[in-house]
């Protein structure tokens, strides 16, 4: 995945649309903040997602963080490899570390999400 072609949520997920299927992952910034990823709690195929609501949890040594769905739809695919080895997320957050694929609800788009430029501005203001 080319970070320049992706859209972003304020909660550090990236989204990539192909037809009506949206692939979701965590950004490099999120992965850098988490560092030691121990465990990931994933949804089931067929579960509904609501834009802005939690679809799972990621646990690092220091804390547990929610994973937020960037769009509304239905879970089509879950990256099962992460359950046994969550460190794949830190090693390749935009590639092999993808989290879920969502089949978008009719009429849903990625337009409400941030562009790379907007996301980079946000993280620049978060880091002090």
């Amino acid at each position, binding site marked *: 995945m080319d970070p320049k072609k992706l859209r972003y949520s304020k909660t550090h997920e990236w989204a990539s649309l192909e037809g009506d299927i949206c692939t979701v992952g965590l950004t490099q910034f999120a992965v850098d903040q988490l560092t*030691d990823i*121990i*465990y990931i709690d994933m949804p089931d195929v067929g579960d509904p997602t609501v834009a802005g609501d939690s679809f799972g949890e990621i*646990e690092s*040594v*220091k804390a547990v963080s929610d994973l937020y769905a960037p769009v509304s739809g239905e879970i089509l695919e879950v990256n099962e490899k992460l359950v046994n080895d969550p460190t794949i997320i830190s090693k390749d957050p935009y590639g092999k570390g993808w989290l879920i694929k969502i089949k978008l609800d009719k009429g849903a788009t990625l337009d409400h999400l941030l562009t790379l430029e907007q996301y980079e501005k946000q993280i620049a203001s978060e880091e002090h």
Partner: protein
Amino acid sequence: MPLRTPLYDWHLSHGARMVEFSGWDMPVQYTTIVEEHTAVRTGAGLFDISHMGRLSFAGPDSLDLIQHVYTNNAATMKDFQARYGLICNENGGVRDDVLVYRWPYGWAMVVNASNRTKIVAWLAEQKGTRNLQVTDQTEQTCMVAVQGPRAIALCQGLTAFDPAQLAYYHAAPTQYKGKGCVLSRTGYTGEDGVEIMVSAAQAVELCDELLARGVKPCGLGARDTLRLEAAMPLYGHELTEDIDPLQAGLGWAVKLDKGDFIGREALLRRQQDKTRPVRVGLELEGKRIAREGAAVVREGRPIGKVTSGTFAPTLQKALAMAYVDPAQAAVGTTCSVDVRGKAEAAHVVALPFYRRPKT
């Protein structure tokens, strides 16, 4: 406004992520917690522990005051020895866990950062007409810990006194680059190593030299995972004003027959109560972390609460310490821990979880 140790800028320039801890700005990690933890278990790691309280006692009645507030027996300590013990309240609950040092010319005490103000006030309150002076030297000094199997070797030649000659739980006043320094063969990681105290002015120079010798900077994140694997209690978690040292499994640091001390009578009474919760180690079957406050359950009934938990980087297991009903505390007892609404299977294991290999 949090306090800053003499190494604050040094931490930032080495890429530390800072966090507020007990009123101090401290590094939580420089790289990753797992990397730093592993460096301590396999080589040597450097911790800034300047936030911990360093109190010195001078005057003929110093031992008397220490004996009055401290559960262990300071009177049997030799010069240059360090000894762990508790300071209790009148109900036998723990006010702090401390290290006492005996010097030929006086005494010293190292206390938790979170309890420094409390203990300084407690000592003043308990002093009475005793002839002594307690001085808080925390903000004039720097203290660092160098911990790991390579720690002693990497510290040789640093100070006039050779750390390899220092016996475990002993200390030596010596020199670092011509100025006063104290070396103490103590630590909070379960590894060999030293804690080094220098004046604040030498802090940066000391740490630069340690890094050049191959010691890796480590933060509070790794400090917590290390002490947890070694089953060392953390004040505010395994020890509080409502928990007594006996139920915490620290009876070895309490000498009920040494003479009277604050909390002694209460401890004698509490000892009779065989129903009060006791500290145990838990190993969870899965990877999810049982964090502080999580309920421990057996056969549908709550039997206790987690006080600390993590995913242990060396042992590669989710581990926790908890206080449970003593009737359910036997090693091997199966139970579950409520982790954010889901019951995670666990069982009681012997403490410590980790012991360093004998060399």
